[in-house]
């Protein structure tokens, strides 16, 4: 065994070299781009834009499939689902020959501070749905809701059951007060009266909230782990793309955020069956569409129990729940995201072609 002092010196020299290499790679990766699939804006309302992804070259349209609309959360950017070719859920869905659309909520500004959840639901999501249905001349589409977008999708499916043939939810909470929900504990006593009056909440603030759920892992360890992995250009570029997404959060419209905090986190209305949007009761029992509920077993933002509750409250007879062995972000970009999740979604949808799901949606 060598002298401890010599060992320590060698270690610091080695680590110093690794830091320098990684730093150089990080600087090189500054110009990385995010979003890889070709798309075009086909409809918009206010800040909301509906994108249609262009079919992949050489992939024929699959007959007997419905258009698929992806509804992401208001609190993050949707390009995480199409961050780069090898992890793009969008690309995998396009590869199955489906028409894929995405709702992008845009950047609310002070002119949108009075926008309510019902506006996002009926004018935003509803407008997108109606546009797609008209374009495809079909009565119903498949809806894929992600995180908070899954909550909106559940509400929409309950209120407009005829327009949604089948529903897929990713990391979507239904019970907002499970014991392991730290976010819920922290916002339980926030004064929503004040929250509504202060105006839009900056995205940086929500980021701070999410990062402070596990600060050492999310603000320290992930950077140091760069030293242990290979500092090759591709790995570092992947990392930088993720970083960009994490720190690129849109501001939140005051009224909608206040309603979300009060009605969902503080009063747990969705689960209790007391949620009203636009004067109509959102009854989860009215969600009778085939429903695939995918959630992460190691999720620190939306605990598995919050998602598992869905099965107890929806009216669907064709309900499948599946825990994926990863974390919240891992659902979008991990190896599981590359392989297991798209595969599960595609095979589940393929098992429910147009004719079949319509019959199931309206059981005798």
């Amino acid at each position, binding site marked *: 065994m060598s002298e401890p002092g010599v060992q320590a010196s060698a270690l610091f020299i080695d680590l110093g070299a690794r830091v320098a290499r990684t730093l150089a790679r990080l600087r090189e990766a500054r110009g990385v781009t995010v979003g890889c699939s070709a798309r075009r804006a086909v409809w918009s309302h206010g800040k909301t834009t509906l994108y249609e992804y262009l079919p992949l070259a050489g992939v024929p349209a699959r007959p007997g499939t419905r258009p698929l609309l992806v509804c992401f959360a208001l609190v993050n950017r949707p390009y995480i689902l199409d961050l780069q070719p090898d992890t793009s859920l969008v690309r995998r869905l396009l590869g199955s020959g489906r028409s894929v659309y995405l709702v992008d909520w845009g950047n609310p500004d002070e002119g949108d501070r*009075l926008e309510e959840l019902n506006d996002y639901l009926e004018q935003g999501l509803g407008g997108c749905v109606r546009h797609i249905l008209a374009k495809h001349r079909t009565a119903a589409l498949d809806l894929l809701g992600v995180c908070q977008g899954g909550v909106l999708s559940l509400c929409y499916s309950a209120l407009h059951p005829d327009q949604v043939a089948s529903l897929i939810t990713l990391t979507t909470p239904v019970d907002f007060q499970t014991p392991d929900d730290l976010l819920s504990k922290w916002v339980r006593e926030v004064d929503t009266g*004040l929250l509504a009056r202060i105006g839009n909440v900056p995205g940086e603030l929500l980021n*701070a909230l999410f990062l402070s759920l596990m600060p050492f892992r999310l603000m320290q360890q992930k950077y140091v782990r760069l030293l242990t992995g290979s500092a090759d250009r591709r790995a570092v570029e992947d990392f930088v793309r993720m970083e960009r997404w994490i720190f690129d959060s849109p501001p939140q419209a005051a009224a909608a955020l206040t309603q979300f905090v009060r009605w969902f986190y503080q009063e747990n209305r969705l689960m209790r069956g007391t949620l009203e949007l636009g004067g109509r009761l959102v009854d989860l029992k009215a969600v009778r569409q085939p429903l695939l509920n995918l959630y992460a077993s190691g999720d620190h933002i939306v605990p598995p129990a919050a998602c598992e509750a869905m099965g107890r409250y929806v009216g669907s007879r064709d309900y499948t729940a599946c825990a994926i062995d990863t974390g919240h972000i891992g659902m979008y970009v991990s190896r599981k995201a590359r392989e297991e999740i798209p595969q599960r979604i595609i095979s589940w949808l393929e098992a429910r072609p147009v004719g079949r799901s319509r019959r199931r949606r309206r059981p005798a």
Partner: protein
Amino acid sequence: MTQSAFGIPPGESGEAFTAAAARFFDLLKAFAAQPQPTPGQPPDWTSFAATLAGQFEQWLRAAPAAGAAFAAATGFPAGAFPGAVPIGPAAASAAPGEGTWELLMKLGQLQAQLTQHWSEIASSAAQRFMERLRAAGPTDLTPDNALALYETWVECAEEAYAASVRTAEFSRLQAQLTNTAMALLLAQRRQAEALARAWGLPTREEADALQRQIRELRQQLEERAAGSPAAAAAPRPKRKGPAKPARAVGPRARRRGARRGRR
């Protein structure tokens, strides 16, 4: 480029990485500086634990939890609040700034409570780490060991953090910090609005009122455009003004009206 609440500019991973690497090096330096244990005796980690806890607490203070981040993000570092000093005649007046000093004091007290939590978390994390080191026995400082050591440290830190921040007391503190910061922001806005009114400038309140009117009008337009049954069935508010856009009323118009009446 906007700055995140934790001082990490979005997209600037390099700086965040360098900062994290520096803290990692600090940990290793403190570890390497430990005196070699006497043969046959367990190593004494007391000074290492103290160094770790100190570094850790410093970091926690710099990277505040959400409630404190809210206070910072809304522009309320202690002492930064502009307003009239509530002494003399101002003390008795119901000026817009009334109550802001109390709120500032409250914010200071809450931040002090938060600091106490950070100290407890830091010391508990160091304690947990020492216990793991003792259980693992003497360790050489090789690159692999160094990284394993760091992983253990993060695990201990997260455990200590979770044990504290999941308590009802901490959750209440977070909410109080957020609520106080919001109340301060609104108090500041009231002062700014009073100034704006004095200068004849439009205020946020007025902009909000206009926005509400535009919203209502837009809704009515959309309902009419859609010809929704709800819109048709909804009782129309009684008009206070003219039912139609005002028309020119003059002798000629009156004569036209009279002719129509005769027909």
